[in-house]
């Protein structure tokens, strides 16, 4: 189960810490240096999670350029993030 995390500054609580699995493709995989990873995060949405990962891995893409899929389906960047989610940030596609 998740646990609450206290953050400094007036005793405000951040979100529940969740363990999610990221899978990376294309330029994100190159920049992360891994094809997948588990992260523990107290972010609430994919947009917030990407901001956190962007700082960690030095991604050059911004969230405006991305789509996201959770558990195998496209969803919004402001979707709720849940424990155990499989998250894939999708760089601009280039099939065909």
């Amino acid at each position, binding site marked *: 189960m998740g646990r609450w995390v206290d953050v400094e500054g007036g005793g405000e609580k951040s979100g529940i810490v969740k363990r999610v699995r990221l899978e990376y*493709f294309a330029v994100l995989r*190159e920049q992360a240096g891994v094809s997948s990873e588990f992260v523990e995060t107290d972010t609430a949405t994919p947009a917030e999670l990407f901001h956190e990962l962007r700082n960690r891995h030095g991604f050059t893409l911004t969230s405006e350029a991305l789509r996201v899929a959770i558990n*195998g389906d496209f969803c919004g960047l402001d979707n709720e993030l849940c424990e155990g989610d499989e998250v894939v940030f999708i760089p601009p596609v280039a099939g065909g």
Partner: protein
Amino acid sequence: MTFWLSDHPIEGSREKERLAHPGAGAFVSFEGWVRNEHHGRAVIALDYDAYRPLAIKEGSRILIEAQTRFHLSGIFGIHRLGYLNIGECAVWIGASAAHRREAFAACMWVMDRIKETVPIWKKEYFADGSSHWVQGAG
């Protein structure tokens, strides 16, 4: 599923057999081939990758929509993944219909949609030894 991913060369002549139908007077196929140039730079190869479960799901969704939209007898598509040399077939789309107008239009429409939303990416390898992931439909 009507949309497959393949790690092996696509044989179009074999794939089209699945689209034969007594009511179909027309069959149209499209093949996307690896080209030797992009934005003025000499390309020697492409390497395709995909988020496979969603690529299959989204590609199939597009083909099923095309079947309805263009009143097709049948439709099928395969996208190749992996390292492809110049001239190799990266994608095959086939459509059969009562008449040619729908079959031609369906192939064009499907390719436009695939390039917009299916989670497939390609890395270009250039003659000067550099490479980069193409970003966005090209």
